[in-house]
């Protein structure tokens, strides 16, 4: 099981090595994007196989959802590289793809039973939630890069990182796009989830829902303050805080606070 998943992991690891190496070359993207693309294909096949064996979408399980999350992050990386020819992000983003892929494969995948996890409304709800989390993870990485680049510029350190990382304005813009997508997608996911919960549970309040609303609020504040004088490192810090909330929701809230509403 998961042999394709492990192949993807190996490809991601190789991509990371090449991405780091290409940082020290004056020009060229190197083969990292191609390796990530190959990894994405392998991982997609893996998810497909898992889904078949479960007789449903693979992301009903915790492992599956994390693997799908990694897959979407990998896709986001590829999009950035192809659209912005942006190679400096790879070494920072690929480790996340790698780590979540491994985690997704290692975590148990008991398929939950029951009607609550079937139907297209549910499928959209979960897929969009994972997509939103991937967007927030991307924003987290971009925010780290922002802070690093900000520091290099302020100290007049014009070395490798300085020359490879994009301009602050560019990182900020990518961050804004990423968070906007995350907010919209998460909001739709929450709305679908609430509608679905009404149908299968006849209404509920749940720690995870509260947490999702809090996450939406924090990222909303971030976008708002971005235009109200906080553009820059403060907004980057807010995004990092937002992603800590996301991780917390994925781990602590998922495992301890929420009852019916969990990945197992």
């Amino acid at each position, binding site marked *: 099981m998961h042999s394709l998943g492990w192949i993807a992991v190996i490809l991601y690891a190789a991509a990371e090595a090449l991405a780091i190496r290409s940082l020290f*070359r*004056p*020009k*060229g993207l190197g083969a990292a994007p191609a390796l990530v693309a190959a990894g994405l294909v392998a991982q997609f096949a893996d998810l497909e196989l898992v889904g078949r064996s479960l007789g449903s979408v693979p992301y009903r399980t915790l492992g599956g959802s994390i693997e799908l999350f990694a897959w979407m992050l990998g896709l986001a990386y590829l999009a950035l590289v192809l659209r912005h020819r942006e190679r400096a992000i790879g070494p920072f983003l690929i480790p996340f793809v790698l780590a979540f892929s491994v985690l997704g494969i290692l975590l148990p995948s008991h398929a939950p039973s029951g009607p609550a996890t079937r139907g297209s409304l549910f499928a959209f709800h979960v897929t969009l939630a994972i997509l939103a989390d991937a967007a927030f993870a991307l924003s987290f990485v971009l925010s780290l890069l922002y802070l690093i*680049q900000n520091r*290099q*510029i*302020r100290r*007049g350190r*014009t*070395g490798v990182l*300085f*020359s490879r*990382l*994009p*301009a*602050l*304005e*560019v990182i900020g813009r990518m961050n804004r796009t990423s968070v906007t997508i995350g907010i919209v997608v998460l909001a739709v996911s929450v709305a679908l989830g609430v509608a679905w919960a009404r149908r299968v549970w006849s209404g509920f309040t749940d720690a995870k829902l509260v947490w999702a609303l809090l996450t939406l609020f924090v990222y909303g504040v971030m976008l708002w303050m971005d*235009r*109200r*004088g*906080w*553009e*820059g490192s*403060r907004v980057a810090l807010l995004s990092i805080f937002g992603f800590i909330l996301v991780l917390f929701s994925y781990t602590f809230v998922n495992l301890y606070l929420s009852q019916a509403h969990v990945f197992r």
Partner: protein
Amino acid sequence: MSDSHETYLLVLGWNFRGASGPVRDRVAFTAEEVREGLRRLLGRGLVSESVIVSTCHRSEIYGVAEGEGVGEELTRFISDWRGLEPDVLERAAFRRFGAEAARHLFRVAAGLDSMALGESEVLGQVRQALAIARETGSSRAVLHRLFESAVRAGKRVRTETEIGVHPLSIASIGVELANKVFGELSERTVLLLGAGETGTLFARHVLEAGVRHLKIANRTPEHAEHLAARVGAVAVPWDSVSLELPSADVVVGTTASPRPVVQRDDVEAAMRQRKGRPMFFLDLTLPPDIDPDVRGIYNVFAYDLDGLEEVAAENRRRRVKEVPRVEEILEEEIERFLAWFGNLSVIPTLTHLKRRFEEIRDRELERLAPAERERLRPLADSIVAKLLHEPLRRLKNEPDAARKLERLEAVRHLFDLDRD
């Protein structure tokens, strides 16, 4: 076989290392003078090929000639042409022959021989020199190959090393830092304080860097207006500098004012109006034009002369660190060139050609029965010798070096002599 017609590469030059400014000025040629010089050189028959590289820091004459004595004749030629005492020229000049001449050009093209280590302009100038020589018909097989190889090596150095990546001048460092804040400067507004010498240089620099919105303020408004008109910028009144701040993304101080022109309060007010969008300050003078305290304001980037000079020193160190890698690349390319050039000397090619013919003869004889073979061997020997005789004679006695090299190259190609 005699090698009386062996070919030599040489370069005779004057650069910032050995020649004083006045001497360099006298031997600096415009493109038109380069053409004239090339025609005269070839007309006198001193060299069979020539390329002249002339920039503000160097003038170098590359030539292909027969024998090393040509160096002195070349100096005399320049002395006649430019009206300079031969011994003055001679003392300031440097000369290199053969592989050393080739190596020199490779180093020049890679920027290793430049005053600003690793600068890239010289690569274009080398390419330009070759273009002019081709137009004039003065570069042929050897120099053509030499210059193309040097240009290729220079390009490899640009892409494979960082020798030209980190800027050395204060103005370019300032622009690079601002670029890393704003991404693109073309749509940003730059406010320049001061229209003196530093201001003028900086104005030129940012406009070359793609800035389209440049405002210039100067205590004496005529100077600002004059400079603005010359470079295509907008002059703004000195009194309204603080009013201009909110719309300025980059502010550059170049005045001789004893007290800061831009105060922290002004910047704070401007940042409020800008809703926190970043501002970038460069102070290129001492005492500072910009209150050093502005650095404490959120999203304000500010650099003074000391800070920028530190970056320049660091960048210079980075370039120096790249030199060994650059030299490795150059040696690889020089070796390739020299291998080709070495093959073009007459004796190895002729020996090679003879061996190739004999191989064919032996292979064909192998196919015969032993008795038959012995009987036909003298005939085969004689055919090979007769086939080789005329080409060998002509190649050896070709007086024109460039033509000889072209022919040697053709022979090597036609008989596939570079195969092994």
